[in-house]
């Protein structure tokens, strides 16, 4: 397994200007972790969930506002708050 890449997946081919992107990576001691990331809305309600990629990365297409990311990996759950805006990718590095 190669090491974790900094930040979320490559944005090539993604229409960043029209989307509100939240992305990043999940690592443990600098190495990518296989698990899941949930996106919760401002009221704490589930909005989406994705498995992390082989390099620990994840991406959501959200809407402008404040969101919570919840990483679920074997033996740990970690929350991070993120503010997203249209036209830019909000990058979140989650260490578990």
């Amino acid at each position, binding site marked *: 397994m190669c090491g974790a890449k900094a930040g979320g997946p490559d944005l090539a081919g993604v229409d960043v200007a029209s989307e509100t992107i939240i992305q990043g990576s999940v690592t443990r001691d600098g190495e990518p972790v296989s698990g899941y990331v949930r996106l919760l809305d401002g009221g704490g309600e589930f909005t989406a969930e994705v498995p992390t990629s082989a390099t620990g990365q994840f991406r959501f297409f959200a*809407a402008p506002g404040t969101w919570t990311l919840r990483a679920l990996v074997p033996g740990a759950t970690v929350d991070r708050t993120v503010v997203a805006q249209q036209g830019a990718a909000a990058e979140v590095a989650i260490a578990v």
Partner: protein
Amino acid sequence: MSRSDVLVDAEWVEAHIDDPKVVIVEVDEDTSAYDKNHIRNAVRIDWKQDLQDPVRRDFVDQAGFEALLSAKGIGNDDTVVLYGGNNNWFASYAYWYFKLYGHEDVKLLDGGRKKWELDSRDLVAAVPERAATGYQAKAQNPDIRAFRDDVVNAIGSLNLVDVRSPDEFSGKLLAPAHLPQEQSQRPGHVPTARNIPWSKSANDDGTFKSDDELKELYEGEGVDLSKDTIAYCRIGERSAHTWFVLHELLGQPNVKNYDGSWTEYGSLVGVPIELGAN
């Protein structure tokens, strides 16, 4: 019917993994997940390639379903155990689909692929070989599938349960947030629908909540369980999860899944649409 007839846990699957009369089937939104690894002896059903008509927007017909299950080595008297990613969304969709064509013994693995992974259970890459069967499907059961006219006629009279996330219900998002948002249809929801996201029926690990919690959830949201209910989402897979909760776990007899869901309804000309939260 009780919960144990339709839902099994990982220990049950591990105890039956080599039982030739039990067929474990993985169904994922990400149809390549199976290629990476899967539960030993599990076969794959691809919800796009195997379950959708290649031309029309509809399911494969009865003969097509028979050919699919025959090729997968699934017999009429086999116990089928479905599991998948995304908290069993597409496994629930396949469960409902198997019931639509009359398969008797179908079960879901509680928590699906996610719980299996989070519990660090074994996954393998080897693809099992199963001898082909001569599967005989029944005609589609119209009692569990709703069409667009059923939904329009249900406005203001029957229970309409919109199981998408609150932001999709209100019109802020057009698709689940792991997908790009550019869509052709209008945002919003069917008037008089209650927004009860599928996620409220499941725990973080993807397992279903208890029957008491589930009953309280729907009654607390104003769903009169004595009335007929239609569940919908965006393409019918999350609402199949809620159909499973209402029809299979809570034993409500008159529950239909509207698989056309928002991608159809939000594209119809002239139908009423509401915006905003519950």
